[in-house]
């Protein structure tokens, strides 16, 4: 084989390798779909869980309901979003001495994006910052504002149209929430639906 042929063969292999790399990255960037078609423009979706738990190291803080409002779009072939509101309902602690005086998201909006890990689709919410002011005369954290910070990854289910946040989804997305010097856990199954142009349409990610 002469030098020109060898160079040509190498070039073809290189091109094939590069194309494989790029197609792999493309498949790792899922997008938002409504009724089976890729979302064009923006849409507002909401996720809401019946029961969700936010466990801070040492002190479990649970909220009965938890909502989030997300403005979503496909940008550069990847599903992205901006979390603009995140109200919480009926939050309590595991200690009879500690009450949640106030709790809420700070520094909104939070950026988010879709990601595929091992053939499963996830939503990753970045820059989460939740402030919790505890109260109670005999609460060792009373009068203190604790902060939960970090990022959160939730597994998206196309059939149930839900986002599930738990230890497995955090691990898969390599995300972490921290509070009180340790790892905070956020769990909940969030049915998700559109509230603007695509109401009552199937929301999927692929």
């Amino acid at each position, binding site marked *: 084989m002469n030098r020109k042929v060898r160079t040509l063969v190498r070039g073809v292999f290189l091109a094939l390798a590069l194309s494989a790399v790029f197609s792999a990255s493309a498949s790792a960037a899922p997008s938002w779909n409504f009724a089976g078609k890729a979302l064009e423009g923006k849409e507002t979706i909401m996720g809401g869980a019946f029961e969700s738990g936010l466990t801070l190291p040492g002190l479990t803080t649970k909220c009965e309901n938890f909502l989030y409002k997300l403005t979503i779009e496909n940008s550069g072939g990847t599903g992205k979003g901006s979390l603009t509101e995140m109200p919480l309902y009926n939050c309590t602690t595991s200690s009879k001495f500690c009450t949640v005086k106030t709790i809420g998201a700070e520094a909104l909006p939070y950026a988010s994006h879709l990601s595929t890990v091992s053939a*499963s689709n996830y939503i990753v919410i970045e820059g989460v910052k939740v402030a919790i002011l505890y109260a109670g005369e005999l609460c060792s*954290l009373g009068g203190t504002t604790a902060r939960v910070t970090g990022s959160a990854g939730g597994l998206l289910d196309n059939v149930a149209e839900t986002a599930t946040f738990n230890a497995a989804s955090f691990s898969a997305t390599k995300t972490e929430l921290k509070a009180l010097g340790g790892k905070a856990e956020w769990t909940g199954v969030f049915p998700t639906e559109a509230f603007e142009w695509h109401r009552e*349409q199937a929301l999927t990610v692929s």
Partner: protein
Amino acid sequence: MKSTGAILASVLFAFLLALSGCGGGEGSDASTQSTTSSTQGGGGKQASSDPSSSKAKKPTSDPSKQESTNSSTSKAQKEGVKHGSHIAQPKGKRERAPSPSEVANSAVADISLESPNFITTASSEYELPTTYTCDGKNSPPTLKWSGVPAGSKELILFILGLQPIEETLFFNWAVAGLDPSLAEIPTGQLPTGAILGRNGYGKNAYSICPAKGQAETYVFALYALPQVLSPKRGFDPMSLRKEVLGISGDVGLVTASFER
């Protein structure tokens, strides 16, 4: 047209929040409520008002099972119609976010406090090794911190049980008069100028010694104060803590457990 849609969505969202936020007792009975979707009017699809029925549609929380359904397609999905659960109207009281003044008047956990001596458990919580308890040397673990605000005048450290004992906070160690330029207290060393308070055992010392067979969680709290308090040796940590919380400032918090 688009802005009308956006306004409609915002109004619906606000309506949803107002319902739960103002509803109080009314909002607590989910069985009598319609769901969020049924209040939208857009889809004309009446969703179940019973959270339990929506719960029945919930997917399994087993991620492995979810992964298997992730790529499957239902008939409704093929038709492009929403097929998953609708969002239920939130129950109960909408929590209020801390106001800027509340945050300013509380001790905010913005100082990073840690100990290289803590053991990280499988559940990513911290455990206190036996050597730092009365079954070991009963000397405090090394504590390191960063993020003390510029201009702080004094640091005060408390180690106390997460749960009170006999209706009072139980302090294991109380140290005032720490120089704000400090970034750590090495194990077994008391920095110059440090003032010890009386712990729950009645001594001006450190001690962690729960009852045998009992698991306790300890809160390590380092307060950075904008003014000097400098209490006298043997001070009452409960009173000093009240004073500290009244002044506000930043705090570093970390918790660790020990089962004897």
